[in-house]
């Protein structure tokens, strides 16, 4: 079982000065599974993503990639080990073409020495083929990304990460800006990617998007992990209430009743 684990994060803590952004967060992701990371605003999701992708260095804890303990000094290090992050801004330039975006920073080259040039024909072919595989027919890969829909852009960003050898995909709120149909297209693609052997860490605060596709769920609250649950141990309602800070809502309900009672007895 442990051989399937691609990345493990053990007891990760991150402090910013006196602020404890993350405390003892432990999680792992296996080949072919979708691990959902859920949390409300301010739960520490962004900090965790940045730690996982090499932007921040954790103050405590260890990162184990395919059985080997490592440290990430930069996002490049994480990328080199196959851990690719698709941020919310997608790192796409809307004025540039699909192809130029797809290969941005990693352009295929041809020719020798000083005359090495960007092999745009090959790049066009690969971009069109890759987008075709996920059901987005890019008839003209030189069309600007700005003309694509939000879902298509998300798929482009994911597809790019996979093409460049991602073993683990960290997806930051991939559905947050999308409509229902677009979101389902993206989620379908994520499931497909996982079924082909990738490990996916899906970060979201939308339970309705996470629950149908996730295999396991880690809930983050105020910088701490509230545990990881496989889907069979967790109903959608349970997840929802944990997410929304169910206890807090319960407490609020009690307080409201109390206020109600007091105001009634006063009258």
């Amino acid at each position, binding site marked *: 079982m442990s051989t399937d684990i691609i990345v493990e994060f053990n007891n990760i803590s991150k402090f910013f000065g006196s602020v404890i952004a993350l405390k003892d967060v432990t999680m792992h992701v296996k080949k072919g599974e979708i691990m959902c990371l859920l949390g409300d605003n301010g739960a520490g999701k962004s900090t965790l993503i940045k730690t996982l992708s090499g932007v921040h260095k954790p103050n405590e804890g260890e990162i184990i990639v395919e059985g080997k303990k490592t440290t990430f000094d930069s996002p490049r290090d994480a990328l080199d080990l196959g851990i690719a992050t698709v941020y919310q*801004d997608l*790192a796409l330039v809307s004025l540039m073409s699909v192809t*130029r975006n797809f290969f*941005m920073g990693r352009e295929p080259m041809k020719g020798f020495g000083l005359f090495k040039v*960007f092999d*745009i024909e090959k790049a066009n072919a690969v971009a069109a083929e890759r987008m075709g595989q996920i059901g987005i*027919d890019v008839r003209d890969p030189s*069309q600007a990304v700005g003309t*694509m829909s939000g879902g298509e852009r998300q798929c482009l960003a994911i597809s790019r990460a996979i093409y460049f050898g991602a073993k683990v995909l960290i997806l930051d709120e991939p559905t947050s800006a999308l409509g229902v149909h677009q979101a389902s297209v993206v989620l379908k693609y994520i499931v497909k990617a996982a079924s082909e052997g990738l490990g996916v860490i899906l970060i979201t605060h939308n339970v309705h998007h996470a629950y149908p596709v996730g295999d396991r769920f880690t809930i983050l609250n105020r910088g701490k992990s509230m545990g990881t649950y496989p889907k069979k141990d967790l109903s959608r309602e349970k997840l929802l209430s944990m997410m929304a800070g169910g206890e807090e809502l319960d407490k609020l309900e009690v307080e409201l009743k109390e206020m109600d009672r007091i105001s009634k007895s006063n009258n």
Partner: protein
Amino acid sequence: MSTKSQSIDRKSQDERLRRVSKLKKLLNRPELGALGGSILVFIFFGIIAGDSGMFSAYGTLNFLEVSSNLGIIAIGAAMLMIGGEFDLSVGSMIGFAGICIAIPAIYWGWPLWSSILFAFSMAVLIGYANGILVVRTGLPSFIVTLAMLFILRGATLALTRLITGRTQVPGLRVLIENDPIAWIFSADVFSGLFVWLGSLGLIALRQDGTPLATGIPTSVIWWIGLTIFATWILMKTRYGNWIFASGGDKLGARNVGVPVARVKISLFIGTAVCATIYACVQVLDAGSADTMRGFLKELEAIVAAVVGGCLLTGGYGSAIGAAFGALIFGTVSMGIYYTDVDTDWFKVFLGAMMLIAVIFNNFVRRRVTENK
């Protein structure tokens, strides 16, 4: 994938098909506006001043030379603008590079070629300083290079007066003769061809039988060469893709591993080097350096780049467009002398042209980025 979702995909594919017609794709090219503008300008002067000698060999070379001078700096400015930054110090750099050539050559006895190399190394240094300041401080390049505009112009004036006691440094012409590299900036090309054309009576001759137009100025060759080189970089190389990416979205570009800071610094060096090429051409042509050389040229370069389709916000534009922008500028600035129009109106035309270009570019940008 289910058949149902496939049918949805088919439908969305058709929607996309409808969007991309040939004409619309052409409309999205950045240099289209400048190309159309050039054609309009030529038609206009063809009608107004067609028989005035403007389009004779001599007249043509005249406006081509003016265009080419501007074109050299406009291409540097366009590349930088695509990379998302401005350089307002270009004009001052021209003056500074001029005295960097003239003072060592005349007052310190350096060979001319070494003072030319000295000017280029100063350009690299100043471009690097501009770039590193913009990249490190995160301040708008507008402010940083505006400061550099004053610093360089002031330093040019102060140093020249300190060393020479005046603001002009003449006397370079005699040094050009035997210099190994000065011809790169000052010789006329194909002068044999022009003599031959003159002997055939195809072009106008002087009293002594030599042709009026003695050859194609090197600046025109520089202009065309730089345009081709810049276009090749932008369209065909990895670095070109990085320029577009850095200007289009520097955070996104950085996240996928584009060395944005390095790209921007090198582009600042590029504008300073272009300014120095311009300075070489001017100084060697005139045989003297002047501290006021290149005054306001930075704005003309920006006008040419913008008329050529570069977006002020970066990420979009072309070197060919900038070359055409410079051609429009040069043609009108010279052509106006062949018409009855008072030359005082030139700047009115310039401003109007820029305004139209910006409105047009804005429209193009919205077309390209609009999300349906």
